[in-house]
């Protein structure tokens, strides 16, 4: 306690110098916490959008995705077929099933093009499976899907890009040089709604049968299914794996992901990126630590006589070591608290300025910042403190 009081008083004596010393820690802690806040915000956004799908959804992807590993979309070592769709449809626990066919072409209409549009082939039940709502018009009908009708549903994005200020329903859009009549517009999803980069707002949906004709193949990119209420998605996942495997000659060359799997995968990807960027930012903490060491070494030299006096009146070397170590830790701690303040201010600013980033500072981040400060203080304060403690009291008392 007395040590802490002494530490703060000697920091206060040299306010300007102490502040400059803390700057490295302020920047280091501020940037690490801000990066973590942005990542945490992104994770929450992703979680929110994935939760928006509903907990009863199950996705089937070609290729084996190791649970928890990097989310590799569509490693096309294998394909999903219409047979897999009907196999899944045949399961008692499954409510609705929809194939999803990806057409990698730009959508055009009214002389404009939308290069960000994601064109996919879907079925008439996809709207319910993906938990989407119509803004205007209607969704695809069963007969349109059965008859490969040239009709399309547009998301809020392509709708405003291709037909700014106008109603898209009834208009014609061009995909792969074929005309499609727009029969409905999707309701704008909440701004947080993004699924690994694929935003439902950017979608243009056509019947999957039509998409197959357009591509000249029956390849299915994904199968989306919903589980009947009261059934555990994890159990249904096992069942799907078991049954679809039979279609693939007993080889599990596809993946079945529940909402929980997608959530885990997505947050692991974010975590990996965060760790990388945050560790780069953490370098400035090392620089800050060196700054503290530098100032403490100067301070020890300047206060040589004080050390001598303290030893003469009964301080042990341990007392002196602890005093200077406390001072380094206190410096680092104050820097970390200011850095946290900077991170809070920065995350508020980013949240206000940006539409896509919603930084969130978790209590773990605050704990981490304080732990980092303690660690830096100890690591970089120990050498000056040892030097102070080792001073010979007689020589120290003679020091001018």
């Amino acid at each position: 306690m007395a040590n802490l009081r002494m530490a703060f008083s000697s920091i206060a004596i040299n306010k300007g110098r102490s502040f400059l010393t803390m700057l490295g820690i302020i920047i280091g802690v501020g940037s690490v916490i801000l990066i973590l806040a942005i990542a945490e915000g992104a994770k929450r956004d992703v979680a929110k959008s994935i939760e928006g799908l509903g907990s009863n959804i199950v996705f089937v992807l070609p290729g084996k995705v190791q649970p928890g590993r990097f989310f590799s979309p569509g490693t096309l070592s294998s394909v999903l077929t219409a047979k897999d769709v009907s196999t899944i449809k045949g399961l008692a626990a499954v409510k609705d099933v929809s194939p999803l066919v990806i057409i990698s072409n730009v959508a055009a209409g009214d002389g404009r093009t939308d290069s960000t549009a994601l064109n996919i082939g879907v079925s008439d039940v996809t709207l319910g499976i993906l938990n989407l709502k119509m803004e205007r018009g209607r969704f695809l009908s069963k007969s349109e899907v059965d008859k490969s009708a040239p009709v399309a549903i547009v998301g809020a994005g392509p709708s405003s890009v291709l037909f700014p200020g106008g109603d898209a329903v009834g208009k014609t859009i061009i995909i792969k040089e074929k005309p499609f009549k727009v029969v409905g517009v999707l309701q704008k999803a909440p701004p947080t709604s993004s699924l690994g980069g694929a935003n439902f707002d950017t979608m243009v949906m056509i019947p999957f049968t039509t998409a197959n004709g357009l591509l000249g193949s029956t390849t299915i990119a994904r199968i989306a299914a919903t589980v009947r209420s009261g059934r555990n998605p994890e159990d249904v996942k096992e069942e799907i794996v078991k049954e679809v495997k039979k279609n693939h000659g007993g080889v599990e060359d596809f993946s079945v992901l529940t909402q929980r799997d997608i959530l885990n995968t997505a947050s692991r990807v974010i975590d990996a990126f965060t760790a990388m960027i945050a560790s780069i930012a953490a370098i400035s903490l090392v620089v800050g630590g060196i700054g503290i060491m530098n100032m403490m070494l100067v301070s020890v030299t300047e206060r040589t006589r004080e050390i001598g006096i303290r030893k003469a009146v009964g301080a042990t070397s341990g007392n002196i070591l602890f005093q200077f170590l406390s001072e380094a830790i206190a410096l680092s701690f104050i820097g970390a608290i200011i850095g946290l303040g900077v991170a809070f201010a920065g995350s508020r600013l980013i949240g206000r300025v940006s539409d896509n980033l919603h930084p969130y500072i978790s209590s773990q981040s605050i704990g981490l910042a304080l732990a980092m400060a303690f660690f830096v203080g100890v690591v970089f304060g120990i050498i000056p403190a040892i030097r102070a403690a080792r001073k010979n009291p007689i020589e120290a008392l003679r020091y001018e």
Partner: protein
Amino acid sequence: MIELKDVSKAYDSGNGKTYVLKNVNLSVETPIIIAIMGPSGSGKTTLLNIIGGLDRPTSGSYLFAGEAVEKKRERELAKLRGGRIGFVFQMFNLIPRLTVFRNAELPMVYAGVPASERYERVMAALRAVGLEEKADRTPDKLSGGEVQRVAIARALINDPDVILADEPTGNLDSKTGKDILNVLASLNRSGRTIILVTHNAQIAAFAKRQVRIFDGVVQEASR
């Protein structure tokens, strides 16, 4: 109380050893005022540092209250300095950024006296040296005599048996110096041993016993 037997302090210089103290024998019973006199460089400060547990003899033995000081560990020496011995320096040696109160309190902090007890004791010590009202000032706001009185209050705070004063009046005018000597004399009357280092014969005359030191060799001088 204090018994030095054949105490020597030597440094390795280029050609052999240089003796600062050579076979010093000194026995001090309490309570007394003893003056150690000698020209500068004679080894008197080194002798005082050894008596005070700040320095260790190269050879010989030193008993303080029956305990062998030269065998004590660093921690035990610190405890001796803080608890049973009080230092008063020529250069005063207060910590400039601490208040009078905090300076006088310091030995109690290291002796582990609980904070609740410290306030009363600091104020009593400052009262004893007549500086109660200046407890919240920093040393730069005080006169030389006042600073030295704070140093004496600090030396007294843990109720030591011995006070070691190294040229305590060396940086003071003669009147203030006399005041400080009177304070030391009253401490002696209350049962403490005062060991005074000086090169000033007038000040030495104030002591009941005088010891002369020259080139590291001690001679007893009778009054």
